[in-house]
């Protein structure tokens, strides 16, 4: 069996010493988990290594850590997979695995972080329980199977904190509600039995640390060990808030997002110079003459002037935008027409597989968001065929 060099980040607040790396050579197969290695050290060498863990099958959510820089569960990350993330080898011939506590949360001891102080506080923020549609039926609510399968993706969250650990927006704005809590919010907004969809969406849109604080960095999708895809859930909340409920928030988040979209539709490319004016002044070339746009442009002069001086913005492009070959521009517009022309939005979902063909080695995570409007739809639950399945990958970019 290969030997791995396990470097565990240790810290004891009562010791008076700073955090340090604790190194152990561990002989295990590469398909053993990082947790196996940590427990081997704890059982055989040093019982004081602190890590929360229980189920060892990626369902209890206890053992969130960073392994060679990437957050995840120690119990379902293979040693070799973690080792392969490093290329320098740390000057050591053996594969090296550095295990650290998760980020964005204070460390209590060794690999144990204070999830109450950050993660659970944010969960509490999103009114994390069902507000029942009245009247409560005598028996169960009659809702489409697809709607329940749809929210199962967010229900599958195990609250491990891996997404919170590496959320870039939260690093800049610790007040950001964040990927885990916003996914939790979707679990209610997507649940047809909940009575407060609008209030929830309005609340999350208006919060300056809410829906529109996410910057699409994809870190949370990458981090999540359960395929919850928190960022996708945030985008779904945005589509429901902005498009379905037409909530225009005081943070200007929704209009800013629309400005992105209309700019690409109009020019085929983003036109940065027109982005701010449009999001404050309206979605046309004339937006820049709106008084609000003027105000925000004036406010942005300290950023604009150096940009012009350094040649990052040319006045000509600022005035008239990028020019794309007419054919290309038409092609872009066609995408908009096709995607926006659908009766129903198609959303990604892990639990709904639209593809049952045998030549596909990995599950295709696709599904029609039935009951999207929250109404118990009468239609029988149907799955999108493979044709729709292949298209839906593009729907994610629709809002970006």
């Amino acid at each position, binding site marked *: 069996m290969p030997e791995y060099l396990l470097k565990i980040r240790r810290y*004891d*607040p009562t010791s008076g010493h700073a955090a340090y790396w604790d190194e152990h050579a561990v002989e295990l197969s590469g*398909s053993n988990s990082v947790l196996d290695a940590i427990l081997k050290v*704890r*059982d*055989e060498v*040093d*019982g*004081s290594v*602190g890590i*929360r863990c*229980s*189920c*060892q*099958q*990626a*369902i*209890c*959510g*206890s053992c969130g850590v960073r392994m060679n820089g990437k957050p995840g569960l120690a119990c*379902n990350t293979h040693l070799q997979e973690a080792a392969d993330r490093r290329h320098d080898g740390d000057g050591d011939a053996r594969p090296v695995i550095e295990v650290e506590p998760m980020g964005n949360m204070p460390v*209590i*001891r*060794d690999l144990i972080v204070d*999830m109450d102080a950050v993660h659970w506080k944010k*969960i509490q923020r999103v009114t*994390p*329980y*069902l507000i*029942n549609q009245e009247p*409560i039926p005598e*028996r*169960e*609510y*009659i*809702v*489409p*199977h697809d709607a*329940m*399968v749809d*929210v*199962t993706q967010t*229900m*599958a*969250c*195990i*609250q491990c904190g891996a997404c919170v650990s590496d959320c870039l927006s939260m690093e800049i704005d610790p007040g950001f509600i964040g990927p885990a809590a916003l996914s939790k919010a979707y679990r209610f907004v997507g*649940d047809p039995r909940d009575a407060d969809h609008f209030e929830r969406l309005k609340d999350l849109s208006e919060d300056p640390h809410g829906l529109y604080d996410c910057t699409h960095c994809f870190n949370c999708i990458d981090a999540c060990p*359960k395929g919850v895809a928190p960022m996708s859930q945030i985008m779904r909340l945005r589509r429901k808030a902005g498009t379905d409920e037409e909530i225009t928030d005081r943070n200007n988040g929704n209009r800013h997002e629309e400005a992105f979209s209309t700019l690409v539709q109009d020019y085929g490319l983003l036109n940065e110079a027109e982005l701010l004016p449009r999001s404050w002044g309206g979605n046309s070339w004339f937006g820049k003459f709106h008084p609000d746009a003027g105000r925000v442009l004036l406010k942005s002069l300290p950023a604009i002037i150096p940009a012009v001086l350094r040649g990052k913005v040319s006045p000509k492009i600022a005035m008239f935008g990028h020019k794309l070959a007419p054919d290309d521009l038409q092609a872009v517009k066609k995408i908009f027409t096709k995607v926006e022309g659908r009766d129903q939005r198609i959303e990604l979902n892990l*639990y*709904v*597989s639209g*593809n*049952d063909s*045998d030549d596909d*080695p990995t*599950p295709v995570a696709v599904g029609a968001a039935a009951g999207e409007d929250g109404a*118990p739809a009468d239609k*029988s*639950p149907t799955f999108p065929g493979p044709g729709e399945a292949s298209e839906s990958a593009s729907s994610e970019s629709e809002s970006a």
Partner: protein
Amino acid sequence: MAVPSHDVLIIGAGLAGQRAAIAAAQTGATVAIISKVHPVRSHSVAAAGGINAALNPEDTWESHAYDTVKGSDYLGDQDAIEIMCREAPDEILWLEHAGVTFHRDASGHLGTRAFGGASAARTYYVADITGHALLHVLYEQLMKHSHQIDRYEEWFTTDLLQDDAGRCDGAICRNLRDGKVEVFNAKAVILASGGAGQAYKPTTNGLIVTGDGIAQAYRIGAKLMDMEMIQYHPTTLAGNGLLITEGARGEGAWLLNAEGERFMEKYAPNKLELASRDVVSRAEQTEINEGRGFPDGTVALDITKVPRRRTLEALREIVNIGRDFAGVDITREPIHIHPGQHYIMGGVKTDVDGQTTIPGLYAAGEVACVSVHGGNRLGANSLLDTLIFGRRSGQHAAQQASHMNMPTTPASRAADTEQRIRDIINRPAGGRRVSAIKDELGETMNKYVAVFRDAEGLEQAHEIIRRLKEEAPSAAIDDRGSVFNQDVISAIELGYMLDCAEATVVGAIERTESRGAQFRTDFPTRNDDEWLKHIDISVNGADVPKVSYSEVTITRWQPQERTY
């Protein structure tokens, strides 16, 4: 310093504990819930397949009750089983209204799947994360009712307190965060701290499932019951023992031996893979012992029989488990499995309101033995058990508390416990490690107290356990700190597991017949004349525990020969 005082103190925050907390709070009591881990880490989270209830208009609670009685090999108490099955449909609806995202049928009503030992498809489910979904939704309710329910998360209970009359009136607990030990006063205490699977190796149970509540109650004199009844789940992964849900067989998966034969045809011609768990586990073990298994001591579970799309929607977790822990795509190829320790039917003996033999002390969930599972638990009846008897315990405890005075144990009472913990922390080095003793215990139990048992092996196991019990108090630990000292906790847990294991072995030696999960190769038949009774185990100082018996309650189903 003020001592935290509540009408009802609940120890353990899995499904039984959380359900008890909500029920007690709704009855008007002040409630505290204490757990050594954050509530959503509790092992209820791992229950996969679903929860049983006769909720369909064509189904009847009597049918559910009969299946349960038969599944228990007639050792279950039929009054308790009747209550559980009668109240099951309303409990499912309560859960649904609380927000559980149960999967639906095509008409939008609650959907069901088939499960082992059941004569109707009455298992309600959320994909294969049913326990997880239930636990997280109950925790949502705990957060909703946080003004009524005080949560003490990551507090380890070390002792149950009793007043001069022997009534349980509180507990002593240690805050893992800073190592402080505190007294909790309560008019009633509900144990909901789960089973003791870690006394076995391997087990499907998480590392936290160490029999704390069973041992704590036992040590203050509560009777344990049916402790010899240990469930081996038919489908656990080769090597690490991880659980592959019975939902897989419920959805249509087959069991095959190495010769490609669907061997359940021989053992249970009617129910095949969906016979009771004890029956299927014995069948598999027989195939393996007789040389028709694979070289790694397994048989195969063929999930490719289930339509792939259905697997991806309804069995997503085991797709992940197959991929991450066995390197197998279960939608493409069979996976190797064998029987593995999963559940303990026995526990702290209670009545149908969760009252143990110690006044003021209740127990609910896997820690308890009502007994609704008897000799063998049906799949998807454990979630039901936790919720029904968690709720009933919470209600009963709250009602009792409403006309009682608050006990007044002073904070200074924690001093002895503090000293005991200090002594563990300051133990001289040199003894065997806690983990080494625990491993020996686990391997012993899995070797001698497993699917097939005999007197010789059981005596051997008992001897080893007695030796380990002597050794455990000097087991070495490394951690001398106060913040999150998990090492000292593991030393205490080791003692709990040894108590549970001894009770199991003593019960298994005593029961000289084969019933449910207890199969004695030296007494291979059921013997209703002598053994249609529960074995109760109680503490006897440091000596081998005392054995006594209690009647099995039979209401309407007389024992019959059991075939599937």
